[in-house]
C-alpha cells in the first residue's frame, strides 16, 4: 500500500476530486484539445495570453485521477508565467515523470508538482500525467489540430 500512496498522494487525490481552474475560459485567445486514445482521456486547455504571459488558464475534460490532477496542478503552476517559463517547467516535469531526474530532487523549481514523481514507477501512467502538458504546449504553439499521446 505504501508504494501505491507514492502514486496516489493526498494532493493528487484532492486535485482530482476538486480540480482547480476547471472551467471554459470565455475570454480565451488560445485553446487546444488533447486526447489519449488508449484510455479515452480527453482534455481541452483554454489560455488567455497577454503578449507572452499566460494571464489566465482553464481546462475541461474527463480522465483518470492522475491526468485530472496533473491538469489541475499544471494550471495553478503556469498561471502568470511566460510561455518560455511554462515550456521550461514542462521540460522538467517530463524529465521527472519519465524518471530522467534521479530520486526526485527539485532543482528545477517544480514545487508542488514533485508529487507526480511516483508516476515514473508506472510507465503506462506517464502519458496520463503528461497529456495536459502536451495539450498546453499545443495551445501555446497555437496548434489547431487535436493532439494525441499515440
Amino acid at each position, binding site marked *: 500500500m505504501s508504494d*501505491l500512496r507514492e502514486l*496516489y498522494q493526498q494532493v493528487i487525490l484532492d486535485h482530482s476530486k476538486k480540480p482547480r481552474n476547471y472551467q471554459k475560459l470565455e475570454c480565451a485567445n488560445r485553446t487546444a484539445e488533447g486526447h489519449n486514445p488508449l*484510455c*479515452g482521456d480527453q482534455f481541452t486547455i483554454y489560455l488567455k495570453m497577454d503578449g507572452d504571459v499566460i494571464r489566465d488558464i482553464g481546462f475541461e475534460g474527463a*480522465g483518470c*485521477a492522475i491526468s485530472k490532477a496533473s491538469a489541475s496542478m499544471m494550471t495553478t503552476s503556469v498561471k502568470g508565467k511566460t510561455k518560455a517559463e511554462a515550456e521550461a517547467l514542462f521540460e522538467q516535469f517530463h524529465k521527472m515523470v519519465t524518471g530522467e531526474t534521479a530520486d526526485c530532487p527539485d532543482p528545477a523549481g517544480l514545487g508542488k508538482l514533485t508529487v507526480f514523481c511516483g508516476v515514473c514507477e508506472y510507465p503506462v*501512467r506517464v502519458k*496520463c500525467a503528461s497529456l495536459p502538458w502536451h495539450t498546453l504546449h499545443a495551445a501555446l504553439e497555437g496548434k489547431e489540430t487535436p493532439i494525441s499521446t499515440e
Partner: protein
Amino acid sequence: MTFASDTVSKKMGPLRPPALDVENIRRDFPLLTQKIHGKSLVYLDNAATTQKPQAVIDRITRYYQEENSNIHRGVHSLSEKATQAYEAARAKVRGFLNASQDREILFVRGATEGINLVAQSYGRVFIKAGDEIVLSVMEHHSNIVPWQMLCEERGAALRVIPINDTGELGRDEYEKLLNERTKLVSIVHISNALGTINPVKQMIRSAHDRGIPVLVDGAQAVPHLAVDVQELDCDFYVFSGHKLFGPTGIGILYGKAGLLEQMPPYQGGGDMISSVSFEKTCYNTLPYKFEAGTPHIAGGIGLGAAIDYLNGIGMERIAAYEQELLAYATDALSGIPGMRIIGTAKEKAGVLSFILDGVHPHDIGTILDHEGVAVRAGHHCAMPLMQRLGVPATARASLAFYNTKEEIDLLVKGIYKVKEVFA
C-alpha cells in the same frame, strides 16, 4: 425415436457434465503461478488474450525442434512432416467448428484479418454503391472499420442495430434494418465489452429469409461455448487463436465453400496459385487460394494443440463452469457500494464490465494490478458502444475456465482497496 429418448432422459434427470477439476487445470498453465508485486497473479484479462497450456507451448517448441520446414512445396521428409502437422491442425479446427469440409477453414492472422479478408474480397465483388451493410452498436472496432473502409470505397452505407440499456440487441430494430439494399450482416457472437451472447442463429435465419449472407465475429465466443457453424448456418465465422489458449498471430476464417469459390483472392503470392506466367495466373483451389505466402506454420499447429486440449476438457463442461463462476462474480460485485455492472443481458458470457462511483477505470486498473489482479481498463476497442452507454471507459474482468471463486474474492478485495485509496 426422439420421443423415446426424451422419456429416458426425463427418467434419468438432466444430464449434467461432471464438474471441472480447476486446481488440476491450473497446473497446466505455467504462467498462472507468477507473482505480481509480490502477490499471486489473478489473471482476469482473458477477453484480451488467454494464457497458454503447457501442451501448446510444448507443441510449438517441438515443431521448431523437430519439424521446422516449409509446407506444401518440399519433396523432402521434413517438409512433408510439417505439411501434415499443419493440415492436421486445419482438420482439428474444422472439427471444433463442425464445418463440413477442411477447405472451408482458412488460416489467417486473427479475427481482424478474417473480417478484412471478407470485406476486401467478398465486398469488392458483391457490395456496390447504394448497398447497405448491417452491424451492431456493440461491435469491436475490427468489425466496424473494415466495413467503413469498404463503404467509403464502394459508396455503400453502414446500418447499425441499436441495443437496450442492459446490452441486448433490438431484435425488432434489426428486422426493420434488413431490406433489399442489405448485402451483408456482420455481427458479434459475444460482446467483448458487455459479455452479451447475441441470438445469432435467429438473426442468421432472418437474414437468410431475405437472401442476405451473415458473418459472425466469434473471437469472444469460441473460448466460452461450443460453436457449430452448420447449426448456426452462418456464411462466415472468424476467431483468433490467442483468445482460444493458442498462439498469437494465427486465426481462422470459416466460409461456406460456395461463397469462397466466388470470391477473388485476398493477397497474391506463393502457395495461392496453381500456375503463373506473365500472361496469366491460375489460382489455387480452396483453401490455398486465400493463403498467400508462407503462413504461421507453428501458430497453426499450436492452435491445433489448443483445440486438442480444450476437447480433452469439453466445451460444454467449460461453459457450465464459467456460467457458475459468472453468477458468483456478478453476485459478489453487485454487493459493492458504488459499483455499477455495465452489461446485464439475460444471455451472458464471463465478462464483467464495471464502473465505480468517483473512480476512473484506469485508476481501478492500476490499483488492482498492485494487488496482483490483472483487468483491462479502457474503451475495449468499442468506442461507439462506450458512447452509447454514456461512459468514457469501463474496467473489465473477463473470465476463463482456469479462474476460481477464490480469485473473484481477491478481485472484490482489490476493489475495496480502490475504494479505500479514493475514500
